[in-house]
């Protein structure tokens, strides 16, 4: 199933793109699984995703834990803790 991945702030800068579309890989069922799968790409992805404790995520535009279920997700975003206001 196609999944849009969005990146914000330093995650976006390290990855080098703001968004991409992938097919959900086998064995990836949570945002944490996906982060580790992305880190395995190496380079900027490894820099961005090697320490998942620094990451937050939203699935279909709701902030959820990295251990949430990705089944049926259409969009996931990875980003650092928010700093607005």
């Amino acid at each position, binding site marked *: 199933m196609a999944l849009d991945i969005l990146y*914000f702030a330093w995650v976006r800068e390290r990855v080098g793109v703001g968004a991409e579309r992938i097919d959900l890989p086998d064995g990836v069922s949570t945002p944490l699984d996906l982060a580790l799968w992305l880190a395995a790409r190496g380079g900027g992805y490894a820099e961005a995703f090697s320490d998942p404790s620094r990451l937050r995520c939203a699935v279909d535009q709701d902030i959820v834990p990295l251990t949430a279920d990705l089944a049926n997700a259409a969009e996931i975003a990875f980003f650092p803790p928010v700093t607005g206001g």
Partner: protein
Amino acid sequence: MISVRVQPEDFDVGAELAALEGQGGGAVASFTGIVRADDGVEAMTLEHYPGMTEKALTALADQAKGRWPLCGVTVLHRVGTLKAGDRIVFVGTASDHRAAALEACTFLIDRLKTDAPFWKKEHRSEGDNWVEARARDDAAARSWD
């Protein structure tokens, strides 16, 4: 009335307050956040998550209306590059009761800082850096749980 906007443009706080004052309540409270020139910060860039941002701010406004008797809630946030002294965020509330207006205003800005998808990058003459989230902002937001 709930009014939520995310925009690069500045906002007219007098006009926003006048709209809240016109909702029939006796009490209007507001909070405005401004870029501080601390530590050599010349400007900052606000990035956000289009689509989700408006949804998150509207959810915060709805939560505030569920917790306090409000007749108006306004949440405005700027994005893009802002310089020292520029407004970043405006939160306004209207109610029949002053405590409701002031508490809801505090709730909204506390929660906005941890629940809405904005990220600040500071620009200094010696370089740029992403602002780190602060534990005390998390604590303030969780105090409303």
